[in-house]
């Protein structure tokens, strides 16, 4: 396992990321010649003047670009939340929705669709999604905390139990849904980036920046928490408070993402592992690199989703599963092999 030279790696991956945004925006259901794409982008900069086709401009700048940016932000968020959960729970199988946030967000959206609120305004689904995530967080947290102490094991188990319960509730609602609602519900449940526009970018950007600043400021504590609870206390970390703050930040960020795009699986589980293999577990590098890795991963997955059966789209959750599950099995086999050698 080589530990690559940090600054070089970081700059290289960031450039790769910018490149991926351009590529992802250039391709889609409708073929737009590459030079047209470049023209549309350049026309937005000062000093350049081009006659650009307004339809292409519409598609590139108002349909594809915001979608790609949302994919990047959500991918980055899920990856970093995955890092936090895996470190807090000291469990490599942890992922952002582990304490039930994703399920709660999903159910919120399902309820909004079922009661017809989504027809009144498309605003309702994300709001209900976020409320669902928030309420689930509160519920799971209250159950697992006694005497001011939160047991991580209880949190995990409660999260699993509540997720199952919520899935059952979703299934119940699905039984009673009409055909049109059913389509919308399934579409929502699988997670999708279709239709994400600049409004969604505006909603995401502030929580994204704030939560990441907060999480990054706890990078040393995250390292030490991996040693164990007693070790962390011994080094002077206020374990309860640190865990609560990190848990809430990661859950809120995950909740916002889920409320806009539905639950997209595997990103938060796989990307931290991939990045750790490349640059090691120290959070000072793991966090920013996972942000980029997550953004790249989801942008790529979204591109595949849009191209494979173009002009139709495959749900993004399916692509991330197809990419993620085999890689996960590979990780497990690799781990077993290493243990064999040990």
């Amino acid at each position: 396992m080589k530990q690559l030279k940090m600054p070089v790696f970081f700059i290289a991956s960031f450039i790769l990321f910018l490149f991926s945004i351009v590529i992802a925006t250039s391709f889609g259901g409708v073929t737009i010649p590459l030079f047209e794409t470049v023209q549309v982008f350049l026309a937005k900069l000062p000093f350049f003047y081009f006659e650009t086709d307004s339809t292409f401009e519409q598609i590139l700048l108002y349909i594809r670009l915001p979608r790609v940016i949302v994919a990047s932000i959500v991918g980055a968020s899920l990856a970093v939340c995955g890092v936090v959960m895996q470190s807090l729970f000291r469990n490599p199988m942890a992922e952002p929705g582990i304490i039930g946030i994703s399920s709660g967000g999903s159910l919120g959206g399902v309820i909004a669709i079922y009661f017809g609120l989504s027809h009144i305004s498309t605003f309702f689904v994300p709001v209900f999604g976020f409320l669902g995530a928030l309420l689930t967080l509160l519920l799971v947290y209250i159950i697992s905390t006694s005497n001011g102490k939160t047991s991580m094991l209880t949190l995990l188990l409660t999260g699993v139990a509540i997720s199952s319960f919520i899935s059952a509730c979703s299934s119940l609602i699905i039984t009673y849904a009409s055909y049109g609602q059913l389509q919308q519900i399934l579409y929502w449940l699988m997670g999708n980036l279709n239709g994400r526009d600049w409004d969604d970018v505006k909603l995401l950007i502030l929580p994204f920046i704030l939560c990441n600043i907060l999480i990054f400021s706890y990078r040393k504590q995250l390292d030490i928490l991996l040693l164990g609870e007693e070790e962390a206390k011994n080094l002077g970390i206020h374990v309860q408070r640190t865990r609560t703050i990190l848990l809430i930040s990661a859950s809120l960020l995950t909740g916002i993402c889920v409320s806009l795009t539905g639950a997209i699986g595997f990103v938060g589980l796989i990307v931290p592992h991939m990045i750790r293999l490349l640059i090691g577990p120290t959070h000072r590098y793991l966090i920013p690199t996972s942000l980029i890795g997550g953004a790249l991963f989801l942008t790529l997955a979204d591109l595949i989703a849009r191209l494979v059966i173009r002009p139709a789209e495959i749900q993004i959750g399916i692509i991330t599963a197809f990419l993620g599950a085999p890689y996960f099995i590979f990780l497990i086999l690799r781990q077993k092999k290493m243990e064999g050698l040990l």
Partner: protein
Amino acid sequence: MNQFTKLLLPILLLLFLTACNTDTANNDDENSTNQPSEQAKQSAYPLTVTDGRGKEITISEKPKRIVSTALAVDELLVDLVPSENLVGVTAISSDPAISNVAGKTDSIKTKFETVTAEQILALKPDLVIIPSYVNPDVLNQLENAGITTFQVIDDTSFEGILKTVETLGKIVGEQEKANNLIADIQKRIDALKEKADKKENKPRVLYYTEYSSSVTDNTTIGEMIKLAGGINVVSEAGIVGESYPDYPEISKEVLVQLKPDVIFTTAWGSTTNNGEPAFVTEWKKDPALKDVPAIKNNKIYVLDSANVTTASHYVIEGAEEMAAILSKE
């Protein structure tokens, strides 16, 4: 002149005059309709119509690039609008098993397998007609791009469909064609009604699908059954659905109780054995159902899906197909 010629002459004269009059009448009609329609073309736009969402949609001039995003809309527009003005239809419109306009949309280049905003925008449409069950994300993107969208009203009763034809005719500037179409359909409806009213022993009909669901009178298919001169046994028994009131699930027990004389079904997408849908074969073999009159007497009819499950003016063909069958009962 002999007496025969004396009689023949007036008759011939009468015939001749009638013919001339008809021609003149036609000419007059053409003349008289030309001018108002010319005037109508000149003064009709811009116009404002309320669509199925209750929104006021303003159309500033006659649309030249119309996009349809649902099969029913395809069927409606193909018969109203010249094909050079229809720039986008669904891919399914070419499938004769389900589409009533298969073959008529061949010249249209863009056919949507899935409806996405990108494809629609690339066509640079001046009007997009959407159904009530359109994907809200797609709709949102179209509206953000400033495209004029018009949602058809969600009423698929015969009356509602004719109203939709009228509304569409108005907004695409083909009111004459629309009115002719409506008149023609109405005539056929009236013909069926007349025959149905005269029928004495109306056959007891059940519409029953592969998934055990049926329809009440309050549906398009229910209306077809009525126009065809049948009695819908579901509504006769007052059955109403749990999750979808107008589309109740009919269990085997209830089916046996209802004892329909005739079963209508459709089999688009179902597996067939020697031309008979597999599920129909299952019904015939099922010992629990052997005493159901329709099954015992082999009166199970697989109707043309395009006719029966449509939501455009082609519903009349569904009713006529049913009527043709029931008239032999």
